[in-house]
């Protein structure tokens, strides 16, 4: 006889806080997709100030990618594009 829908063996998604010890590494890491890559991604350009404003701090510093989760390729482009906008006095 085949058993159907055996609940005992169905794996449930584990809660990352449900660890045995404190030093055990959690399986599910916090990860987020890059907001500037993909099909409907906005164009990174020095004229697109609305977009660039999102990636600078209050004191006009460029935000690090570990906070904004921008990919490395796009981060390089962002920095050069922000610097161009700063030359023209737009930001």
């Amino acid at each position, binding site marked *: 006889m085949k058993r159907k829908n055996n609940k005992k063996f169905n794996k449930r998604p584990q809660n990352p806080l449900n660890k045995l010890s404190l030093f055990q590494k959690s399986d599910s890491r916090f990860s987020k997709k890059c907001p500037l890559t993909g099909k409907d991604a906005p*164009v990174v*350009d*020095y*004229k*697109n*100030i609305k977009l660039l404003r999102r990636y600078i701090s209050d004191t*006009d510093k460029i935000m690090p990618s570990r906070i904004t989760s921008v990919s490395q390729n796009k981060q390089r482009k962002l920095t050069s594009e922000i610097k*161009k906008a*700063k*030359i*023209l*006095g*737009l*930001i």
Partner: protein
Amino acid sequence: MSFYEHTIIAKQDISTPDLEKIENKYKDIITKTEGEVIKIEKWGLLSFAKKIKAYKKGFYIHYKFKGESKTLDEINKNSIIDNSLLRHLTVKYKKLDTDTEYFKEKESYEKKK
């Protein structure tokens, strides 16, 4: 031949006929040195994020053109000497998109008010 974008910032206290002279001056420079002007955008009077040489605002003129190294040299030479300009910037592009205008909405919004 490759595509370029050139933006210049003129001082705030310049009169409108003089602004047109400046606009035509750089247009002539591009056409004289075997270049081709594709589009000219006037962004109008915008306020700076920071003061530039004790000025708070400036007139922005934006050129999109095709050209060679000769045109670039001539434009840079002239815009450095020019006393009526505050800043200038040229950017090289593989493809130019002439459809999207980032600064057009603001102007129309102000006019409605």
